[in-house]
């Protein structure tokens, strides 16, 4: 259904107090323009006039503003948090977006046109035409070495990243290991160091040369940034201390048996017995279904 027709319908239905997708049209225009700028300068943090949302700051308002500015009535939306469609944050956000847009929801990555996510990239690589909107708490990768916003903006402007590299060097001196867990900085398009949001390092490689578009929204900090398709994205590393994703040893998913996905570690009972399961629940269910089908005669 076209947006115009949908809006017409709203006029007739007087119980709806809000515009389509909640945000006023002027705000949507500003956010879209800023998003275009972000796409034109991969990895660069574009400031924007972040609006107040009915969901708390720190809970995904940046991602929500991006989604609401881009979403049309015909989109198919998937929302995940920590990889799961059922996690509290995802459920909450889905409820809100569907309330103000009426769009169809899905848990299948393959079906979705727009995916909003907190802290994970789906295991299934993005297809051409898909957009992944990531929720970002702290957009500034240099924050661990410099608290001043004025100074970090200068550092980015001048590509003066030596203090970040020095931080990694000092980690190696102290621990023989780079200690950054998630939010592992990436070097985008040979120009900007970018924070990929608190995704595990496992997900960083997906950003490189993707067919889909990655958008990053930080509502509280008021920044939008992007990785357009087919962009060069490298996790920063030394030649003798290379980038390493999380190591699960011999663990496998207790549901589907996978060894190649990012796993959640859970403590089963008081004795501390550990079990693992896929963080990406939809992917896990898919694998499980495939396995079951394999047993059919």
């Amino acid at each position: 259904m076209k947006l115009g027709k949908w809006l017409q319908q709203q006029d007739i239905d007087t119980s709806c107090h809000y515009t389509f997708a909640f945000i006023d049209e002027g705000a949507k225009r500003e956010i879209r323009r800023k998003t275009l700028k972000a796409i034109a300068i991969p990895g660069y943090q574009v400031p924007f006039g972040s609006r107040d949302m009915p969901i708390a700051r720190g809970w995904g308002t940046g991602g929500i503003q991006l989604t609401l500015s881009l979403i049309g009535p015909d989109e198919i939306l998937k929302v995940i948090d920590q990889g799961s469609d059922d996690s509290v944050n995802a459920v909450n956000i889905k409820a809100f977006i569907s309330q103000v847009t009426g769009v169809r929801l899905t848990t299948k990555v393959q079906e979705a046109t727009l995916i909003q996510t907190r802290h994970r990239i789906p295991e299934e690589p993005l297809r051409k035409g898909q957009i992944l909107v990531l929720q970002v708490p702290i957009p500034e990768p240099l924050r661990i070495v410099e608290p001043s916003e004025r100074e970090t903006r200068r550092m980015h402007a001048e590509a003066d990243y030596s203090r970040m590299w020095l931080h990694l060097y000092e980690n190696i001196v102290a621990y023989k290991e780079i200690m950054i867990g998630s939010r592992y900085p990436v070097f985008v398009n040979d120009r900007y160091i970018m924070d990929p949001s608190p995704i595990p390092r496992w997900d960083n490689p997906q950003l490189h040369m993707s067919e889909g578009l990655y958008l990053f929204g930080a509502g509280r900090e008021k920044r939008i940034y992007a990785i357009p398709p087919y962009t060069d994205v490298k996790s920063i590393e030394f030649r003798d201390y290379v980038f390493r994703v999380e190591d699960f040893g011999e663990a496998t998913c207790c549901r589907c048996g996978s060894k190649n996905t990012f796993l959640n570690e859970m403590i089963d009972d008081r004795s501390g017995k550990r079990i693992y399961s896929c963080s990406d629940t939809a992917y896990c269910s898919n694998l499980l279904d495939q396995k079951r089908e394999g047993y059919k005669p």
Partner: protein
Amino acid sequence: MGYVAVKGGREAIDKASDFFRYNQTRGESEPLDVEQIQNQLYFLVDRIMSEGSLYAPKLAALALKQSAGDSLEASFMLRAYRTTLPRLGYSLPVDTSQMRIIRRISAAFKDIPGGQILGPTPDYTLRLLNFDLISEGTNAHREYIASLFQGITQIDTLPETFPKVIDILRRENLLVERNVNESESSKIFDITRESLSFPASRSASLQTMSMGETGGLLTLAYSNMRGYGMVHPTVGELRVGYLDVYVKNPYTGLAERTGEIKVTEAEVISKAENRQGDSPVFTLGYGICFGHNETKAIAMAVLDRAMQAEEPQSPSEDQEFVLQHIDGIESMGFCNHYKLPHYVTFQSELDRLRKAQEKA
């Protein structure tokens, strides 16, 4: 160090107080029922008890009514009331793993022994104004509760107690070990009886924060979370529930249960690097306060850890900076005291300025 007395034209002051009361009472609405405030504005009541440092929900509700909703004033009133009460003794230390839980979550693990119990929280609601609340009928509450329980035939019980999530990390040596200093634990500082000196003991620091003003604690903790600090927190466990209060019977020497209080407790795991021998470990920040106030407990836990930094690099890590500025009663009093006449001192300043201008 609380700010107290005021002098001025007696009559003018009386009239000003009357005027304030008049502002509160005019209009067509009925006088507020203290019980309504206690039940229906319970988060605010909990906050007042915590900042007033007196566990008395009804009195807190009364203070809110009397202060026309000024939370600093209401907390102030509770503190003042507290002064009128004799100190009978101290309760015995309580083990919070024995808490009667109404809410218990961990951000560190997807699932935890005992489960993630969401409990009563507005965290996941959409902040959309509900205009239906403007004109609720007198039976609205009864009807709502009836509809909630309609058709429910079975109610499961929660376990009596829940194990502490951070114990999982402790068992694997991933968390710094408890450092119980024998001499320190036998002497718990009482900030209501002795004034703070620095460096302050952990008990003094935790007490000061536990009765600190929520906004002040939040500001300082937020600065640390945003980058002016190194805590990098993960909420290991957040609990809201009821703790039994025991005192020692002076005659029999036995512990007697005197009642229970609702508290919020936060155990925050910090990534701030630390070492135990050769191995790096996570460290812990602890927060606890009266009533249901999660923002305060988490902020307190972050600041607890921040202040353990060996060399403060930012205000949130500086013990003196934090502890001296977070008491709401002191800060509000001092801020507002600037409205008092200062014309004598000002005259003095005028004299200096005029002279300096002459010489220029």
